[in-house]
C-alpha cells in the first residue's frame, strides 16, 4: 500500500491493518507539527495550493474545527460542506457527491458520514486523498491517533500499557480505532460497559472484557471514557442516565481505590455527571484538553503524509518547504 518513505497510501480510512511502524511514523510526524500551534503566526506553507473539502454529513463541532485548523495552519484552501441529513435523504447519492468532487479536481476530502464504510466507498471512487473523520460505528482514525499520541506523551510508550475503553463500545467508531491502534502498538486493551453496549463477542476484537467499572479501574493504567449518547438511553440500552452514572460512571472515589495513577482520556463532548464526574474530568490525571491540542497536530501530520510528505522531512517542510 504505502510508497517508500511515506507511511500511508492514498487514504486514511482506519487504523485496522496499519502496523506499528506506520502508526509510529504518523505520531513522530505529529511531533514537529505541535509547535506550529504555539507560534504567534500559526501558519506554514506545507500544503499551499492544495484544496481540501471538509464534507460533514453528520453534525460535528470539534472534529470539523480541528481539521479546519490543521488545514489552515498548513496553508491549504478549504471548503466546508455540512449537512445534518445524509446525502440520500437530500436526494443526492454518495456516488454523485463523489463524482461532483472529482469533477472539481480537489486534492483531499475529509469526510464524516453516518454509515459504516462510507469513507472507503468514497475513497474507492475518487482519485483524491480521503481522510475518514468518522464513518458510522466503524472507525475514527484521527481520534485514535490523537489518543495514542496523548498516551505516549504522558507515559513515554504505548507498549505493555493496559488501556480500558469504558462505555458504549458497540456504537463507537472511537473505540474501534483505539482498539486497532493500541493493539498494533503492543498495549493490552480492555472494554468495559453494560453488556447491551458491548459488541456481541468483544474478545473477537482482541479485548479483555469487564462488565463492572471497578474491575476495569483495578486493572488499567489508562481509561478512555466514551460519551454515552442520550439516544442510547432513549433506545433502551440503559434504563437511565442516573443509573449509568452510579454503576459505570468514572468517579474520583472509584479512582482513589486504585493503587496506581490512572490516566484519564475522553474524546468529548463530555456528559459531566454521566460517564465521567467533573472532579475526574478536571482532575490532575485528566489529559482531555491535551487530546484536543494533539488533535490538530495529528491531523496536520496525516494531511502532510497523504500529500506525499515524508516523516523525516516534516521538520524541514514546516520551516518553509512544501510537501
Amino acid at each position, binding site marked *: 500500500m504505502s510508497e517508500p518513505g511515506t507511511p500511508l497510501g492514498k487514504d486514511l480510512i482506519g487504523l*485496522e491493518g496499519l502496523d506499528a511502524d506506520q502508526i509510529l511514523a504518523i505520531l513522530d510526524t505529529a511531533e514537529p507539527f505541535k509547535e506550529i500551534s504555539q507560534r504567534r503566526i500559526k501558519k506554514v506553507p506545507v500544503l499551499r495550493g492544495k484544496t481540501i473539502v471538509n464534507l460533514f454529513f453528520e453534525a460535528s463541532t470539534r472534529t470539523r474545527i480541528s481539521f479546519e485548523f490543521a488545514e489552515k495552519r498548513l496553508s491549504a484552501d478549504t471548503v466546508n460542506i455540512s449537512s445534518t441529513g*445524509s446525502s*440520500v435523504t437530500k436526494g443526492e*447519492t*454518495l*456516488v454523485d457527491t463523489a463524482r461532483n468532487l472529482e469533477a472539481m479536481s480537489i486534492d483531499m476530502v475529509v469526510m464524516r*458520514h*453516518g*454509515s*459504516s*464504510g*462510507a469513507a*472507503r*466507498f468514497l475513497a474507492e471512487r475518487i482519485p483524491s486523498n480521503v481522510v475518514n473523520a468518522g*464513518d*458510522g*460505528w*466503524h*472507525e475514527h482514525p484521527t481520534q485514535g491517533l490523537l489518543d495514542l499520541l496523548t498516551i505516549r506523551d504522558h507515559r513515554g510508550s504505548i507498549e505493555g500499557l493496559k488501556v480500558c475503553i469504558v462505555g458504549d463500545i458497540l456504537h463507537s*467508531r472511537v473505540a*474501534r480505532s483505539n482498539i486497532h491502534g493500541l493493539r498494533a502498538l503492543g498495549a493490552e486493551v480492555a472494554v468495559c460497559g453494560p453488556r447491551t453496549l458491548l*459488541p*456481541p*463477542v*468483544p474478545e*473477537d*476484537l482482541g479485548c479483555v472484557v469487564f462488565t463492572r467499572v471497578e474491575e476495569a479501574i483495578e486493572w488499567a493504567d489508562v481509561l478512555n471514557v466514551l460519551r454515552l449518547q442520550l439516544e442510547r438511553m432513549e433506545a433502551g440500552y440503559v434504563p437511565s442516565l442516573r443509573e449509568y452514572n452510579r454503576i459505570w460512571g468514572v468517579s474520583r472515589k472509584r479512582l482513589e481505590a486504585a493503587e496506581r495513577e490512572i490516566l484519564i482520556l475522553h474524546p468529548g463532548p463530555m456528559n459531566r455527571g454521566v460517564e465521567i464526574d467533573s472532579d475526574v474530568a478536571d482532575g490532575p490525571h485528566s489529559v482531555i484538553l491535551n487530546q484536543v491540542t494533539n488533535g490538530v497536530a495529528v491531523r496536520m501530520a496525516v494531511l502532510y503524509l497523504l500529500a506525499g510528505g515524508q516523516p523525516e522531512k516534516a521538520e524541514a517542510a514546516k520551516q518553509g518547504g512544501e510537501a
Partner: protein
Amino acid sequence: MSERILLRGGRVVDPGRGVDAVQDVLLADGTVVSVAPGIEAAEGTHVLDCDGQVVCPGLIDVHVHLREPGEEHKETIATGAESAVAGGFTSICAMPNTDPPIDDPAAVGFVAAEGRRAGFARVYPVGCISAGRAGERLALVGEMVDEGAVAITDDGSPVMNSGLMRLALEYAQAFGIPVADHPEDVGLSANGQMNEGIVSSRLGLAGKPNAAEDIHIVRDLLLAELTGGHIHLQHVSTSFGVASIRRAKERGVRVTAEASPHHLVLTHEAVEGYRTDAKMNPPLRTQEDVDAVRAGVADGTLDTIATDHAPHHYDEKEAAFADAPNGIVGLETALGVVLTRVVGEGVIDLPTMIDRMSCQPARAFGLPGGTLAEGSPADVTVFDPTATWTVDPGAFRSKSRNSPFTGWELTGRPTTTIVGGRVVWSG
C-alpha cells in the same frame, strides 16, 4: 405451437423414477411421450443431440422476486421469466412483496397472465398471507388460489403475530397450499445489516443474530405441529434452524424448507470491504452455518434449493452499506454455483441436486413437473455439466446485475430449456 422434439443421447437423470442412464427423450404436444434408449425420430421431429449433456426434469425455483408491479426498473415478470429459462429454470414462483402487494385475486391473475404472455418459464403466483402484507388479518386466500396462487407468504417480512400465523396454517389447509414464511424475529434483528459476529463487529455494522431466525423457525414448527398445516420455511441459513427442522420432520411435522445457493457457498466474510452485493436477508453467516445448510440439503432436511432471486437496480446497490437494499439475483448463476461448489465439492451428487432443484420444489408447492414420467408436462432442462464459464452480470437476461458471484469461474451451464414442449432458450 409445440413440436416434436427428440433429445438424443443425453444422460437422462430423473430422480423421481430413479433413472440415471444415457437415453432418448421424446416430447410432443407439450408432454413427455417416452423416455427410452434408441427412439426413432419420425419425420418432422426436431432432433437435439445431447451427447455429453444432462437431460433432466425442468428446474423449479419456488422463491423469486419479479418486482412487477411497482418496481419495473429492477425486473419485470417477463425479464424475470426470461432470466429463469436462461438459468435452466422452467417454473418459478413469484413472491408477492410487490407494490402494491399481490394480496387479492385480481393481482394474482395479473401475475399469472403476464407470465403466460411472456412465454418463457411458467410463472406461478404466490399470494400474501395478510391483507396488504400488514401482518394483521388474512388476505383473500381462497379466491387467490382460484386465480392460480400456489402458496401464500408475506416474504420480505415475517409474520410476527403468532395468532395470525396459526390462522393461516389452519385456513390454508382447505386449499392444499403451503404457508411459506420468512423466519425472522424482527425485534431481534430490526436494524441489522449483516450477520452478527466477528465481521459485523469489525466493520461497525449492526448485526442480525442467528437467534432471530432460530426463534422464528421454532415458532413456525410448533404452529405447524399444533395445526397440522404445511409450513414452508424460506431461505434457512442457520445451523440451529436446520437441526430444528430435522427434528420436526422426525416428529412428523408437515414442513418443507429451502436453502439458497448463496447460503451454501458464502460466509459473512464476503461482506468484507462493505460489499453491497453480499448484503441479503437472511444474511450470509458463518462457516459452521454453511456446513449445516449443506448437510441439510444433503440429507433432505432442506428439501429445495431456491434462489431468492432479488433484483435491485445498480444505483441502489451503489451506496453506503446501510443504505443499500437486501438481495441478489440468482436465477442465472444457481445451476453453475451449485454444480461447481456443492456437487463439485462432493456435498451431494448430481441426481440429488436435480431432486432438490426440480422434484422436491414441485412436490412442496404441488406444481406440475419435476418428473419425466410419460404424460407429464414437457418441461425439460438440458445442461452441459463440464462447460466452464465466467460469471458476467452484463450478459444476464435479468434487468439487474447485483451478484456476489461476479467473476467466478463456474463449471456447468444450461444449454437448452424447454417449457411445455417448446424450446424457450438455448445457449
